[in-house]
């Protein structure tokens, strides 16, 4: 009797552990990169683990088993430059708050996830790029009269809680009332329902939502940036070699048109012309 009971407990435990192993099976895969940086790592195993957003249309969106968007295309360009075939790229969903831990812990090799370069973050990670200069902007209903952040007084603005755009509204545009959610998709739903008057974050993210089929023609991006958010490719702090390599790859991509193609097949579909990649600014590696 006793033996059977013990066996049952051990069995249940083993089963649970097996489940655990499946649940977290990717944790080991990034650890090999610690020593040599991404250049050495990709040269030896032809694999690249990319952290990207899963819920931002046009930038990083998980559709089925694949990821699509401008960030994803940039990641593909980098992978190609590192000699990694497209089949060797493994995508991992990151959210805004876990990007630094993911890089530091080696759960991903690089992060391409609407990742603004700033001094605070540079203390803990390294940044290739910027590959795009975004700016905080407003998404409003097509018929809205809001023309810029000055017109927000008394209006309801939505953003993601704890994000830089939310913070900026709180400190610089105090007359606006701020609604915060944990995801932009909720903000956009509230905008569609008329509970908020505007959604604010980087223009490129807003453009992605405005271009989605189900919201086509309903929203417009105001087009008046009131901040500068240079998007970078995050990687380990000590991987200067990898960082320089990424900048080289981006330079080449700007020259051979693959950067423009990345834009045109994703965010460019909404009609917006491709930005130019300013190669003079690729100076963040330290």
């Amino acid at each position, binding site marked *: 009797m006793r033996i059977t009971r013990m066996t049952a407990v051990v069995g*249940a*435990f083993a*089963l*649970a*552990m097996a*489940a*655990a192993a*499946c*649940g*977290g099976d990717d*944790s080991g895969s990034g650890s090999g990169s610690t020593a040599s940086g991404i250049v050495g790592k990709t040269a030896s195993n032809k694999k690249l683990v990319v952290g990207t957003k*899963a*819920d*931002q*249309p046009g930038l990083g*969106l*998980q*559709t*089925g*088993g694949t990821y699509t968007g401008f960030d994803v295309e940039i990641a593909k360009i980098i992978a190609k430059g590192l000699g990694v075939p497209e089949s060797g790229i493994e995508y991992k*969903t*990151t*959210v805004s*708050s*876990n990007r630094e*831990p993911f890089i*530091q*812990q*080696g*759960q991903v090799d690089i992060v391409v996830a609407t990742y603004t370069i700033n001094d605070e973050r540079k203390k803990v990670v390294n940044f290739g790029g910027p590959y795009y200069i975004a700016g905080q902007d407003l998404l409003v209903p097509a018929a809205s009269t809001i023309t810029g952040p000055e017109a927000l007084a008394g209006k309801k603005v939505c953003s993601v809680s704890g994000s830089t755009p939310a913070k900026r509204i709180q400190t610089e545009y105090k007359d606006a009332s701020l609604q915060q959610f*944990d*995801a932009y*998709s*909720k903000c*956009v*739903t509230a905008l*569609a*329902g008329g509970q908020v008057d505007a959604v604010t974050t980087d223009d490129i993210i807003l453009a992605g939502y405005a271009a*989605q*089929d*189900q*919201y086509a023609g309903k929203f417009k991006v105001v087009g008046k940036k009131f901040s500068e958010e240079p998007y970078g490719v995050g990687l380990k702090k000590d991987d200067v070699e990898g960082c320089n390599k990424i900048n080289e790859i981006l330079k080449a991509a700007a020259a051979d048109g693959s950067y423009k193609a990345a834009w045109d097949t994703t965010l460019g579909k909404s009609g917006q012309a491709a930005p130019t990649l300013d190669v003079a600014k690729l100076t963040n590696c330290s």
Partner: protein
Amino acid sequence: MSADAVLYDHPGPKAKIRNAVLTAVFGVAALGLVYWIYRKFDEKGQWAAALWRPFTESSTWTDYILPGLWATLSAAAVAMVLSLIFGIVFSVGRLSDHWWLSVPSGVIVEFFRAVPLLLLMFFIFYGVPFITEAPMDPFWAVVIGLTLYNGSVLAEAFRAGIKSVPRGQSEAGYAIGMRKSQVMREILVPQAARAMLPVIVSQLVVLVKDTALGYIIGYSELLQDGVNTLAANFGNIVAAAIVAAIIYITVNASLTTFAGWLERRTRRQGKAPKVSGGPAPVAAVPAGGAGGA
């Protein structure tokens, strides 16, 4: 007084009419409310076919919902096993005669019962790596958070259960020469576990629901995959949330049903101890299943 019917007489002709009237009035009011909600949702276009069509396609399930559900269930399964172990260890620890064992056990249990799980998970994911200087996998951050909280609640439930086992049981154990640890392991804990089954199960339901907090630290569970990511593709967040809620209700209701079956089974075999002083052991202990999100 387990039969509720003891509260009122068998209805006579007058009571039957009154009940029928109440039934009709309340039924109409409830139906009216449901219809009003339906109409309001309709006005806002929430029943639009485009919002619901994704759920008729198998790819929606295999790409978003099922992987999310699997992540939810696997985290819950591991956390269940670990919190049961945690609960047993710390309840026994708190009942120990050695103060150096009972005091720390008590402090740990009380602390983790009092801290919101949301804060706890957030800290485990962002704070603990500072101390250990090792990476923290989101999966384990969720599991550890769930274990510490639910394990502490279970520890208190077990402690109450162990105390509810009649003294004669442990005295009989000592009389035949068992040591204290043997009495605990062979006599008290097994009986307490059966007596506390309802509390344990309602706490496990809480645990399943609490996995939903994992999305805050980027663990791709049912809310992250099945609601946020899915809705980012189809723009149907309300519909997706309704589907997710139905899945949660189904999973948890099955868990409760299973527990009811298990309880009847152990009772039929006459293994459950008769707790002295009342037919309902649940009411005698702090309701464990009160917590959670």
